[in-house]
């Protein structure tokens, strides 16, 4: 069974440029998460989807970040415009269902560097 797939693995952009990250969850997993991991820290939740509905986006900086999961499968996270402080690893995870009763599985992440 394929795991969570993310692309690109690495991205270098100049500040003020837009950037997008893509995630394909494990087949059959209805819940999808985007996490942000800063250097030396644990991941922090940005947004959680139940199917195509964003049910928890309280940690998403909505002035510059947006996300979508149009058909309830793969998802895109966008930053526009990027700032120097956005340099981090962006992780996607999925679980069978929500409610924290199911194990979460993580993708390899996208390492973003903003110069």
């Amino acid at each position, binding site marked *: 069974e394929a795991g969570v797939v993310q692309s690109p693995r690495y991205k270098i952009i100049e500040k003020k440029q837009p950037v997008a990250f893509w995630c394909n969850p494990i087949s059959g997993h209805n819940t999808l998460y985007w996490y942000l991991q800063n250097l030396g820290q*644990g991941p*922090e939740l940005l947004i959680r989807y139940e199917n195509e509905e964003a049910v928890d986006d309280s940690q998403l900086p909505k002035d510059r970040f947006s996300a979508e999961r149009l058909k309830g499968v793969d998802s895109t996270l966008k930053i526009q415009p990027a700032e120097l402080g956005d340099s981090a690893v962006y992780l996607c995870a999925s679980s069978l269902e929500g*409610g*924290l*009763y199911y*194990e*979460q599985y*993580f993708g390899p*992440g996208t390492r973003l560097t903003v110069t």
Partner: protein
Amino acid sequence: GIQVEQSPPDLILQEGANSTLRCNFSDSVNNLQWFHQNPWGQLINLFYIPSGTKQNGRLSATTVATERYSLLYISSSQTTDSGVYFCAGGNPQGGSEKLVFGKGTKLTVNP
């Protein structure tokens, strides 16, 4: 929200040694997971263990939910065990269904 504390923050071992990593959480959890983040950044699932004891090869974990802590045991450590170990817990009470991660334990196993 829940707070998760891990100890020790850093651990250096010689190959073959045993170790215990600890995770304390501030409130009850119904999801508790241990992960190993390898040098390439991939988070690898080790255990889903909101309570009880599980074993997988040289690794085992115990969560005492009533006392709000979990332990990860690594026996006969190998250099490939190096990396950062995270525990993460979650509780849907209060409406936020998210895993809260500790800051991790950085393990270095020397040959």
